[in-house]
């Protein structure tokens, strides 16, 4: 990411190898940048943002939709799951994927390919973070049961193929973060899983689901660890926003402490 700031004009350039997005609060500034680039490279202008890294972008004046419909359709075709029966949830609540069963999946590299493709989908699908995190843990040695979990995700994708992430103009840029964790949900090593999502104004901008490094002895401890992860992410967010030159109110962070005893 490159940021150019002068007086009130701001230009932000995002580079993903050879895909480039330029955004600015001034149309003439964009024009100047493009002209400068033209003098050094063979540049093809693709106009307003519409398709970036497999994500379709639908813009109107006050809002923006991000969707990976094409990407999902291709993935379903590639895995021969296009005609499958759709499912309304990505994973069963009683699903316990373990690494200790005997039935190995016959084609580990196919498993890695498909799960790799799924990971790219979390870009517009926060809801898949947890289930994809689960199946990603077995890339080195996929079992038949993991393959079943992946198939379930693909069937859920078939059900939700046109789901879109919605960004709309919001009256303020206040940052709110929500954090949660389970407690010792992994039967193999009993480490807990943290999850958080961060909103800027009305828009969801960051989310993540991640296993904690150490075992928590109580649910409160797991929740605090999750809050700490969230807070460090907010720190990064604040630094990037100040680099862009935006002043925002102090972020607010919410955790969920459950006061019922666990059984």
């Amino acid at each position: 990411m490159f940021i150019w700031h002068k007086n009130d004009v701001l230009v932000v350039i995002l580079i993903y190898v050879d895909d480039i997005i330029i955004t600015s609060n001034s149309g003439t500034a964009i024009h100047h940048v493009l002209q400068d680039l033209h003098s050094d490279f063979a540049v093809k202008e693709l106009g307003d943002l519409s398709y970036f890294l497999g994500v379709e972008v639908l813009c109107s004046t006050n809002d923006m939709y991000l969707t990976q419909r094409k990407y999902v359709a291709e993935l379903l075709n590639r895995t021969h799951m296009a005609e499958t029966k759709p499912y309304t949830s990505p994973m069963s609540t009683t699903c316990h994927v373990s690494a200790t069963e005997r039935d190995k999946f016959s084609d580990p590299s196919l498993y890695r390919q498909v799960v790799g493709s799924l990971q790219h989908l979390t870009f517009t699908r926060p809801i898949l973070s947890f289930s994809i995190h689960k199946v990603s843990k077995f890339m080195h040695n996929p079992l038949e049961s993991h393959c079943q979990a992946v198939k379930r995700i693909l069937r859920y994708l078939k059900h939700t193929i046109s789901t879109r992430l919605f960004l709309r103009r919001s009256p303020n840029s206040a940052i709110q973060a929500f954090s949660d964790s389970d407690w010792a949900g992994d039967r193999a090593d009993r480490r807990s899983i943290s999850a958080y999502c961060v909103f800027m104004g009305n828009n969801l901008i960051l989310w993540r689901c991640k296993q904690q490094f150490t075992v928590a002895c109580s649910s409160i401890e797991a929740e605090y660890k999750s809050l700490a992860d969230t807070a460090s992410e907010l720190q990064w967010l604040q630094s990037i926003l100040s680099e862009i030159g935006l002043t925002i109110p102090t972020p607010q962070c919410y955790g969920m402490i459950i006061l019922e005893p666990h059984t």
Partner: protein
Amino acid sequence: MNAEFDALLRNGTWSLVAPPPKANIVGCRWIYKIKKNVDGFIERFKARLVAKGFHQQEGIDFNETFSPVVKHATIQIVLSLTVSYNWQIKQIDIQNAFLHGALEEEVYMAQPQGYIHPQYPNHLCRLHKSIYGLK
């Protein structure tokens, strides 16, 4: 094929030099591709010169590999700001982006098949710019 060769020369990708002693020579070959349009008709034939990057040895002719990749979260943040503040957003594509990379290391490549200089058949191409297949 001629077009690709001319483009590489125009870009100043390499200069012909006498082979230095003990140089690690990277091979190269032509890759051909038939480009079809949406209806399945042949649109054009494409030739691309690629270096055999697996001949390169770390520390001798490559030190670090680099590709600029932006974090997904950063994209989300910028898109959200774009919508909130009603900024303009444009997308561009750099053609042959990979070939613009300047090389710092000394990389010697064999002359491409079919385009060997008649006067200096034993000379090598000292690469100045990156080429497909290099590390």
